[in-house]
């Protein structure tokens, strides 16, 4: 049992009223806003990098089916490793310091599976007849990919982006433990200082951020599926 | 016997009934086909017999007793049910699928097994090959046969069939229809059969109930009578502009009363006596002659336009090449 943490935490439960609104007002710009910014930065960068890797790998996997199983296996294993564990392994590597970098690496690693899987599924969902028609009209393979397949695969790909983004926002909170910054910092600092207000601020904001991202991307997903829209109209 | 007595069905919140004051009788051992355009309430009517849908007004009697005399679940175990989507249970073997209702009724295992094998034979699937397979391994046509076998399993006196051959291609469908008619000759069930296809109705039905939009009965009679004397403009246009030709499809050449052929028949077209008169007429017109030879009971007989005309009871049928070559 981590005795130190235990002692610290025991005091929390007997503390005074839970939320210190004054503190929140005073430290809004100093602590809270940087935490939000840091968190959004971490998440955004990670999603961007992950996409930059996953899209090409996904496209290749859809074309050359034989590489798909090993790709899934590797990214699947990465996905199964609990975040704290992956962070720890990364910072044990020589030359890796605490900070945002290992966090971003881990976040990217986590989201690869879902992004690659959804890219492949999205491309698979394009009706073969459509591709055939495009080929018959004289489009090159590259043109078919960019003008026909990817646009049609977009809804499923965006669904993957949505899940990846939400996951990343969530795990980024843990990254604060290895000095990655973000809203998790509020949580951990709050635990260390026995200050519920910070904990609650960090937890609530992280949750709100995740849900907002989820809803926004869900809206985007629905927007990209005109046939689903038409059905509801 | 199944009797509809002034049956109506209106869904709550809706003004217009989907089935409107429907009354007719299905006699034992007959196939009664419910046919009509979309929205005529034919499927709803059928599903009211086994109470998958409840009537709003009127009642349905089965052998004199209202079909509400027992619980819906119990009623359905006594009525065979085959639908267009087939609905085989994908997680059970073919044998288990077919044996579902006998199982519910508590038959013992060996009796069920015998019955399953018997039914697989009847629908043309070798028991040893198919008994232990799963639905996903079967083609559409095979699945549909299993669907029919499943409906027959507990040997119910009544069967409800909703476009049971609908999910396959026309060639397979024709084969299934023929086989089913052959089976029915042996088992003589009371069957209510729903289809949107007037040709299927004419082929399969002992009686046809034509329904209009809004669930109104337009005509209830034998196929021959409906084709000969449609009760209304609607019926007449529903059965199609080739109604006269359709009548010809009801009779086989072999059933006609034909004159013996005298003289030289070598040049003439030979027509099989098993062909429908409609198909024979088609061949005759195409041959360019006005007569053809049919072999019946070992004799050669003559099929002529006149003979066909007589069959129609005087309705003239003009050949399309205006008189044809003299013969």
């Amino acid at each position, binding site marked *: 049992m981590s005795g130190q943490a235990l002692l610290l935490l025991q005091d929390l439960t007997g503390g005074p009223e839970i939320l210190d609104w004054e503190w929140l007002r005073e430290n809004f710009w100093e602590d809270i806003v940087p935490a939000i910014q840091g968190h959004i930065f971490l998440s955004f960068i990670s999603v961007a990098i992950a996409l930059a890797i996953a899209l090409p790998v996904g496209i290749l996997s859809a074309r050359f089916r034989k590489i798909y199983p090993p790709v899934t296996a590797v990214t699947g294993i990465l996905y199964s490793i609990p975040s704290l564990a992956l962070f720890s392994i990364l910072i044990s590597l020589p030359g890796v310091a605490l900070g945002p970098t290992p966090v971003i690496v881990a976040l990217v690693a986590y989201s690869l599976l879902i992004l690659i899987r959804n890219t492949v599924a999205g491309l698979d969902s394009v009706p073969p007849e459509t591709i055939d028609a495009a080929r018959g009209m004289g489009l090159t393979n590259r043109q078919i990919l960019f003008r026909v397949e990817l646009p049609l695969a977009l809804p499923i790909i965006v669904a993957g982006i949505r899940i990846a983004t939400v996951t990343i926002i969530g795990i980024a909170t843990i990254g604060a433990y290895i000095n990655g910054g973000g809203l998790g910092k509020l949580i951990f600092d709050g635990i260390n200082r026995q200050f519920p207000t910070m904990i609650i601020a960090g937890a609530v904001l992280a949750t709100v951020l*995740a849900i907002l991202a989820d809803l926004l991307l869900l809206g985007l997903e629905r927007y990209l599926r005109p046939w689903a829209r038409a059905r509801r109209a | 016997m199944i009797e509809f007595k002034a049956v109506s069905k209106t869904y709550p919140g809706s003004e217009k009934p989907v089935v409107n004051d429907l009354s007719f009788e299905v006699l034992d051992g007959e196939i009664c086909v419910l046919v009509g355009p979309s929205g005529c309430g034919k499927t709803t009517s059928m599903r009211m017999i086994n109470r998958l849908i409840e009537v709003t007004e009127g009642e349905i009697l089965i052998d004199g007793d209202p079909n509400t005399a027992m619980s819906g679940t119990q009623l359905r175990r006594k009525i065979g049910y085959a*639908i267009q989507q087939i609905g085989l249970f994908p*997680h059970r073997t073919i044998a288990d699928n077919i044996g579902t209702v006998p199982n519910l009724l508590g038959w013992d295992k060996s009796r069920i097994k015998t019955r399953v094998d018997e039914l697989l034979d009847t629908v043309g699937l070798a028991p040893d090959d198919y008994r232990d397979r799963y639905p996903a391994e079967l083609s559409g046509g095979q699945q549909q046969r299993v669907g029919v076998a499943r409906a027959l399993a507990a040997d119910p006196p009544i069967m409800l069939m909703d476009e049971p051959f609908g999910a396959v291609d026309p060639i397979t469908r024709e084969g299934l229809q023929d086989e089913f008619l052959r089976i029915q000759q042996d088992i003589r069930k009371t069957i209510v059969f729903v289809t949107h296809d007037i040709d299927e109705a004419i082929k399969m039905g002992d009686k046809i109930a034509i329904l209009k939009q809004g669930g109104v009965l337009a005509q209830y009679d034998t196929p021959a009578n409906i084709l000969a004397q449609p009760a209304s403009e609607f019926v007449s246009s529903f059965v199609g502009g080739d109604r006269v030709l359709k009548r010809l499809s009801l009779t086989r050449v072999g059933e006609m009363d034909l004159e013996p052929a005298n003289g030289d028949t070598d040049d003439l077209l030979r027509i099989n006596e098993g062909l429908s008169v409609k198909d024979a007429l088609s061949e005759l017109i195409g041959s360019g002659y006005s007569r053809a030879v049919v072999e019946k009971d070992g004799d050669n007989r003559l099929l002529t336009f006149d003979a066909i005309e007589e069959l129609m009871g005087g309705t003239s049928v003009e050949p399309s090449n205006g008189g044809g070559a003299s013969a």
Partner: protein
Amino acid sequence: MISNILAVFTRPGFLTLLREHIVLSAVALLVAIAIALPVALMIRNTRLGAAIAINIGNVGRAVPSLAILALLLPFLGIGFATALVALAALAIPPILINASTGLREVDKGVIDAARGMGLSGNQILTGIQLPIAAPVIFAGIRTSAVQTVASATLATFIGAGGLGDLIVEGLQRSGPEILLAGAFSVALLAIFTEILFGVLERAFTPKGLKIAQKRQGR
């Protein structure tokens, strides 16, 4: 280095931590199943119920694990119970979503045929819907199980023990062997859970459905 890492596993406290971790995860998962499955069953026939369940599930999935654990801390205190509540709550959404969708997506023709043949509502549920939906439901349980094992690592932050303690200890005391021992044991546990539930999922998939899946090239 490797021998030092292995030495950690032979520490007396290690098995305790492992046990704590497994017990916490298992109980949380069981509680989640006990809540999510009956709810999914109850709403299986109503469209509104299903929509609500799926929306709750989707929102629930978005919530960061650490946030829930931390949020309950000021109100419920430290320890096993708090962690249990948080982990159970986190484990419900995947099961609820999958069970709900799985039951509703059973082919309508199959259900109509079953009704028409005279199966009662209960017989349809136990004999048809549940077996056919089983693979999807189990997939949800599997996702939830792996997620729970992973989140249980965070229980250390609210004093509930588990293998996360090793990681924290390693970080605080700058002991890379301890750190890695903790990390690897958690990772292995998670992978093992994934495999275990994968086996269970296949075991609970009726043979006829496996054949159908193969035909569809899955």
